[in-house]
């Protein structure tokens, strides 16, 4: 009688050791049919990521003092490139894409040489660095409507929006990253940071397509001075702004610049004196 009871007790204890508890959800990542597991991402992190992002995932790896911008601090769960609104968590796919794409003008390379499965395992492991992944859900991805055709009116209207929304304050009247506020910009860790220079023509932080530009100024680049304009711009207006921004990329002969040139339209220079209300 006694031994049966203690056997049962032991069985329950052992069973408890092997049961997966609900918290394991936070240690998984999902992109389409790909499922990543944190415990499989861990050795990959130690091989590829720890040098910059550090053993605690807080961006204090051995290389960190020598590089600028600083490596991402995963413990805060603030990410630059999201499809989700400012202040919310990115989706697994956002992280998966960031790791694969890398970040131009930074030391974060493209990790495309990893297999898809390795990449998604890494994403799952990165999510274990912040407790926010256990309490919050990822934000709802913004809706990006279909891009309307590029027309001269669209570009002209985008130009007017660039003026009115005061993008030039940081990005400069020609988008060269030399606006009146550019020199004093700091990121959320008080490190100096420059606004994007459209004339330089390098790829945008979060991808190089028109959809990527649309997404950047609607969701904002969290952790940097670039705010979200989601509450102050309509979807059609947003596309007009995208078309205008492309014309600022003087080193990239895209369809927007070609159209502007062939139409013979001359856009008014952006006015930089904010003389009280426009």
């Amino acid at each position, binding site marked *: 009688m006694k031994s049966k009871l203690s056997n049962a007790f032991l069985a329950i204890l052992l069973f408890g050791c092997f049961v997966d508890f609900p918290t394991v959800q936070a240690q998984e990542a999902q992109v389409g049919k790909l499922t990543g597991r944190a415990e499989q991402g861990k050795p990959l992190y130690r091989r590829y990521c720890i040098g910059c992002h550090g053993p605690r995932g807080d961006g204090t790896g051995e290389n960190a003092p020598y590089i600028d911008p600083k490596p991402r601090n995963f413990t805060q769960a603030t990410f630059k490139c999201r499809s989700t609104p400012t202040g919310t968590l990115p989706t697994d796919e956002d992280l998966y894409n960031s790791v694969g794409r890398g970040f131009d003008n930074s030391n974060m390379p493209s990790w495309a040489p990893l297999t898809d499965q390795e990449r998604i395992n890494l994403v799952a492991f990165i999510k274990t660095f912040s407790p926010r992944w256990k309490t919050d859900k990822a934000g709802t991805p913004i809706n990006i409507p279909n891009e309307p055709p590029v027309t001269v009116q669209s570009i002209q209207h985008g130009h007017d929006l660039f003026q009115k929304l005061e993008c030039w304050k940081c990005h400069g009247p020609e988008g060269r990253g030399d606006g009146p506020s550019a020199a*004093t910009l700091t990121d959320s860790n008080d490190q100096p940071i420059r606004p994007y220079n459209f004339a330089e023509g390098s790829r945008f932080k979060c991808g190089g397509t028109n959809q990527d530009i649309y997404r950047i100024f609607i969701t904002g680049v969290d952790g940097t001075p670039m705010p979200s304009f989601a509450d102050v711009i309509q979807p059609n207006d947003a596309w007009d702004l995208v078309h205008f921004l492309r014309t600022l990329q003087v080193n990239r002969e895209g369809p927007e610049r070609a159209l502007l040139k062939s139409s013979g339209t001359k856009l008014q220079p952006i006015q930089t004196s904010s003389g*009280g209300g426009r």
Partner: protein
Amino acid sequence: MQLLKSCTATVTALTLAAIVTAAPGGGTVTGKITYTGTPAKPKPIDMAKEPSCAKQYTTPPMTENVVTGPGNTLEYVVVYISAGAPDESSAPSTAVTFDQKGCHYTPHVLAFQVNQELKVTNSDQTSHNIHPLAKVNHEWNKSQPPGTPPISEKYDKPEFISVKCNIHPWMHGWFAVVKTSHYAVSDGSGEFKLPNLPPGKYTLTAWHESYGTQTQEVTIDGNETKSANFVFTAKPY
């Protein structure tokens, strides 16, 4: 019959007792915040980069990381009950407002409760971006052009959050998000008042953005007023 009478008497007595202890008013803690030493002098802010704001001032406005009053008093110190009172996660339904006017945040330090609605307004002719640098709460950053509606947000964790505008780097403010309804911000005379405290043993915390945090114990027995002063050490830089 006898039982009913004594029951009624007991109930009445208990109700009376309950009314007495739950009287509005309760105890009060008042105090004055002062400093020793010499604080750094406030510096004038140059708003030449934003003419629409600069022209709103006849003399340049001053930095506000240390604001003093007559008698070596300190303004903008947040005083609140940090222990001894139950946490209050259901916030008042009224919103608090943080305004941007003259490229300046009003009030400089805004104290409010966890889950209470925060409204940010732009009363200027220029765009601002409102960027509270939360580390414990979610960090967000939104553009707010002139003439656009107030931005409504809330925070679900207590934290002292530094607020900045990236476009106008001289703008600095603070959100003091606390999980109690017993809080106050010291005024131009360095004074604060915490009323309506039920009896209990409390820890009072005083926070200043440049001079740090101090605590003090205070006990309330009934409806008395207790005094609790804080003295901070000023830094010359």
